[in-house]
């Protein structure tokens, strides 16, 4: 078995350079809704960029210095736009039944990203070092305990920071790369074929 040959075969089957960086697109890709995914990805890039800056320069910088506070605010509003875009993206994919034609993996991975970001968002809230962080730590302890997540110490800032910038961030990035790989490999889902009879009958593509 030649491993390089296997990888070449895999890429030829699933993702050539032309798929990864397409110069042509099906004509039905003609709706503002197709921007929602890119909007989500763009806001994620801002979140990672601003988060990395806060991680490097530390909490005093991001709360006290004017530049740090501004980057902190960008991180916060990046998250707001991320969820706004992500939910529009999910609704768009739902109403186009985008899981058709064997694209269910992309749908499932998309939801796994969303679920991971929920926990990432909660850990981020606990790291805000303000009243809301304190109140959510107080309230959240009951939910974490009830769900069997009390073994993680949500009031130890090292644990929460490690989860937020390490585990959850890595998971989100890994799953996003996998999601994008599938998106480009599978090509955009076809419009639904309505074969009459009052119900759209296309269950294949």
């Amino acid at each position, binding site marked *: 078995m030649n491993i390089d040959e296997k990888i070449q075969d895999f890429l030829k089957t699933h993702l050539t350079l032309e798929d990864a960086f397409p110069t042509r697109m099906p004509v039905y890709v*003609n709706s503002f809704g197709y921007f929602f995914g890119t909007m989500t990805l763009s806001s994620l890039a801002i979140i990672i960029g601003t988060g990395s800056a806060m991680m490097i320069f530390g909490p005093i910088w991001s709360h006290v210095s004017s530049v740090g506070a501004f980057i902190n605010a960008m991180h916060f509003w990046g998250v707001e736009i991320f969820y706004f875009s992500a939910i529009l993206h999910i609704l768009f994919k739902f109403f186009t*039944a985008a899981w058709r034609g064997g694209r269910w993996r992309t749908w499932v991975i998309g939801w796994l990203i969303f679920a991971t970001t929920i926990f990432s968002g909660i850990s981020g809230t606990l790291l805000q070092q*303000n009243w809301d962080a304190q109140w959510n730590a107080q309230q959240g302890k009951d939910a974490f*305990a009830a769900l069997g997540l009390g073994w993680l110490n949500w009031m130890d*800032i090292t644990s929460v920071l490690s989860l937020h910038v390490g585990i959850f961030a890595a998971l989100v990035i890994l799953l996003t790369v996998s999601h994008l790989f599938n998106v480009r490999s599978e090509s955009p889902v076809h419009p639904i074929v309505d074969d009459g009879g009052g119900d759209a009958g296309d269950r294949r593509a």
Partner: protein
Amino acid sequence: MSKLSDANLRGIPMKPYDMVREGLIVLTVITTAVILLAAIWGFPRIPPLTVHEVAIKAPISFIERTLSYFTGKSGLQTYGPPYTTDYENAQQVAGICPACWTGVVHPLNAQVDLVMKPLQQIGILNPSIAADLKLYRQAPVAQRVKWAENYSAALKTASVTEGRVISAPGDYGPVAPLMEAMLNFARAGLLEAALTQGTNPSLAPYNTDYTRALLYLGGPIMNEVANHFDEQGGEWGMSHLAGPYPGAWWLWPYAFLYQIPAIGNSPNADLIAGMIMAVFSLLLIFLPFIPGLNRLPYIFPVYRIIWRDWYQKYPSGDPSRPASYNE
């Protein structure tokens, strides 16, 4: 193109496209929007509530809370896992008790960890407090309870003068000076540090576990502040922030469950809401395989609006049957 793309796009009319250019344009627009939002509204910086601040602004509330830990009457002392062994207080539904499965992983004795240990430190600074603590420990249990009950009752009519809590004369034994010592320690801004350091002295000065300092003000004191900001669970809790900020509005479906009295008022509310959300999440994740749910987009044909140009050319959606073909 790959074999997969070839198969998927066979027979589909194509148009020129530049994905990277489109991505950069969207990134520029989103970055501009984020910069504008950050510049105009900033970030919600309502500072945390500190023990020091409470001791100065609400000394009676501070002493009442401290006394509840001291006498073992706070809810924290019978919380259950992960803090105490009161498993009967862990949330459970139909025998399902995840908190019981994970157990007491962060043991906490509120009386000792939140009050006695700081008092021992104060005793090093002030020998009279060490003597009061010794007197309290050596007294019979019935006597301790009587002192604490007397003092607790006196606090209801106590007043504050120049930061000092003035209560009516009574038989409080060493309880009154011990509680006043805790108040002064907190007013000096030393209690939070003592609680954090005390969590695990062997890690000093690297301790980053703020469990004790964060839990100290829990209960009535933090509830009052949360009420001020409309942040209680029955007020959509974690889904919004204090002040005019949007917060985690994507948690509305979760927060909504707490607005249903049967769930919100249940002692197992968090577990019930968590289980419902887990089922809901699984339904969404596996929606492509769930008969009925996976047909919803066909029943609500929003796709015909999204792809209206396509359906104008190909009314059935099939590119091999253009409009002229159907006529």
